[in-house]
């Protein structure tokens, strides 16, 4: 009963090769079908994301899973890549190391963005696909379920995935939500049409923002973007008026000089009725004169400010790493203990069956010699026999379980086989 995996991630595989190696959902399904034909009786799960491709294989019975070399060749063949290119960049592990790796991956500890939660869904999808293609089995099933349990523990018992790391998410969740309680009654003004603005608007929409106005030097571009984002387009010449009405400004123009100077803002400020204004200046160079941020009631954040907050959050996640690794280690040990204990199941079954058979033959002999026993008495005697056998088995089974924590209990199993003459 063994487990193996080969795979590579952003850490080892160059992007160009990763792009060639990546599987779409259809390609992954096709690869699993080929796996089933190529390695009959073996279990296989293929995990393919934008940052990693990993193939997990297992064998429930005594036959070994495919060797790492075979798995590399298989991946190369599926994607039409020369195996010689993959060999140096793909890693392979067996048994405990393979389990530890999967648990780390599922918990986001091996991700490019430490602790990112999307990987959990991707692990679930990989497992579901293997089930659909009938390459999943009890070993990989137990392993992937334990991986998801580990990921859940890491997410709830540590703060590794709690702090946000992208600039738009930090801008909205940590700063905009610190100023405003709700966004459905706020006017959002988008100045310019930079890429970061789309992502920020997505977070703002998720937070409830509905009233969004886009102003851009090109009216056509503003209208086009407004149609895509379900917003309204405004004229760039009306920027000052829009600034008076806005509660939150996201600015991402490509201007080389500040679009809103302190003097411009001062004239708008007088007409704002004392309302707070949050400005997310995501442009480089900045669109808003930094002195505007010193005005009362104005909360101005540049891309550097938000980047610094992201870095601080990243460090917070790093600090959670030891706790997360401890959970992964604990779950790995638990899983391997259970796995080793499962390997003793056939011997236990044979032992139990032998004792049951002996017990039944003894009972038959006893009942023939005591024909006057009624059904109640017979049932009582049978139950006593069964309880006696169970109590005798308890100690060896406990010893086997304890031994399983430190590896497969081969010594004890051999002893049991020889002592009780258990044939395979």
């Amino acid at each position, binding site marked *: 009963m063994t487990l193996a995996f080969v795979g590579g991630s952003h850490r080892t595989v160059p992007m160009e090769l990763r792009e060639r190696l990546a599987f779409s959902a259809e390609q992954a399904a096709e690869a699993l079908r080929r796996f089933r034909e190529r390695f009959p009786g073996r279990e296989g799960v293929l995990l393919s994301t934008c940052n990693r491709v990993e193939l997990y294989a297992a064998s429930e019975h005594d036959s070994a899973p495919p060797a790492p070399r075979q798995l590399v060749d298989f991946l190369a063949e599926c994607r039409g890549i020369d195996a010689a290119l993959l060999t140096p960049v793909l890693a392979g592990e067996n048994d405990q190391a393979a389990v530890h790796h999967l648990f780390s991956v599922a918990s986001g500890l091996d991700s490019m963005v430490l602790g990112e939660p999307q990987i959990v869904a991707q692990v679930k999808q990989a497992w579901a696909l293997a089930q659909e293609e009938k390459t999943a089995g009890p070993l990989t099933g137990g392993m992937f379920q334990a991986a998801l349990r580990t990921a859940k523990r890491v997410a*709830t*018992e*540590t*703060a590794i995935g*709690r*702090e*946000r790391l992208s600039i738009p998410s*930090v801008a909205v969740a*940590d*700063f905009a*939500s*610190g*100023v*405003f*309680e*709700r966004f459905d009654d706020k006017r959002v003004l988008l100045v310019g049409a930079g890429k970061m603005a789309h992502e920020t608007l997505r977070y703002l929409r998720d937070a409830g923002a509905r009233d969004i106005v886009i102003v851009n030097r090109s009216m056509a571009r503003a209208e086009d973007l407004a149609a895509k984002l379900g917003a309204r387009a405004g004229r760039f010449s009306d920027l000052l008026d829009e600034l008076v009405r806005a509660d939150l400004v996201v600015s991402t123009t490509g201007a080389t000089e500040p679009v809103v100077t302190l003097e411009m803002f001062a004239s708008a*400020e007088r007409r*704002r*009725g*004392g*309302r*707070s204004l949050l400005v997310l200046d995501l442009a480089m160079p900045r669109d808003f004169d930094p002195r505007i941020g010193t*005005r*009362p*009631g*104005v*909360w101005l*954040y540049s891309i550097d*400010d938000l980047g*610094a*907050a992201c870095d*601080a*959050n990243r460090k*917070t996640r790093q600090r959670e790493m030891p706790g997360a690794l401890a959970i992964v280690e604990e779950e790995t040990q638990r899983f391997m203990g259970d796995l080793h204990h499962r390997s003793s199941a056939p011997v236990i079954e044979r032992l139990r069956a032998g004792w049951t058979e002996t017990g039944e033959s003894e009972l038959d002999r006893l009942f023939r010699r005591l024909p006057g026993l009624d059904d109640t008495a017979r049932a009582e005697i049978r139950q006593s026999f069964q309880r006696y056998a169970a109590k005798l088995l308890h100690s060896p089974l406990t010893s086997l379980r304890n031994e399983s924590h430190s590896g497969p209990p081969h010594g004890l199993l051999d002893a049991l086989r020889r002592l009780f003459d258990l044939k395979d």
Partner: protein
Amino acid sequence: MADFISRISVVCFAASYAVALACEGSRLLFRSGIRGAVMVGFAAAGVLAHTLFLGWRAANEPAVPLSSAYDWYLLAAWLLAFGSLWLTVANPRTPTGLFMLPLVLGLIGAAEMSSRAPFPQSPATQVWGAIHGSFNLAASVAVAFGAIAGMMWLIQAGRLARKQAPAQGFRMPSLEKLSRFTGRSATIAAWAAAAGFASGIVLNAVTSQQGLLESIPWNDPVILRMGALVAWLVTAACLERAASRRPDGPRTTALLSLVSLGVLTLSILWGLFGASRHGAPPHQAGPHLSPAAAAVMLAEALPTATPPGPGVIR
């Protein structure tokens, strides 16, 4: 059961609140999966014991229920503790208890230092006395809630001004919400304090009509103190309203709320340690009593019934 309830003491719920406060404080030091449950458990146990304690006193005191300064402080502490528990359950990531429980423990401490003797009661003044005490209680609790929201506003604004992400387990409500809450608290506190003051005047007028009080003793230290408190709260509410249309209005409101709490605290300390005869029965009057205080004392010699606070006006 009655025997069990009768054995509940102030120490029982004060200790529960203290443990809940320690749990809240530990948010700043380390993470814990069970801290929230432990904290809510202790706070809930404290509120339950506190409720049973007040219920027992209300049912077993010979005077009108909860009609001593001691009971008034404990009732105010109960309202704050209940509010703290409610807000903690509703917003588990906000360290509400860290701000509210010290006030709760402070009020319990003030209760321990105040008189347990019920204020004199009479059917004629009972209703006005109850109104007077209730408004004073509402004003004090509103000031406390407003100040806590104001303090949170300043901390949150400081964090946003420093451009820092929120600390783990120390997430404050938004400035918008805190500002709204502080403003409303200031308004409620001003109206309640003014109503409490007015009802105190009516109470004295009723007493005066009975011929036992020549006139309202305007120069009694407690009346002056309460008058000053009411004047401040009304001024603060007006300033808050005036500032609401200015960009720095929320900060002004937050600072005003803290000043209001300071004024209220001074007023309570004055009530605890000052030499006033306000609300005391006539037989405790000393030879140094001023004519005005004697008049107040005379009014209080009349059977009245109120749950008045430390700043009771009669």
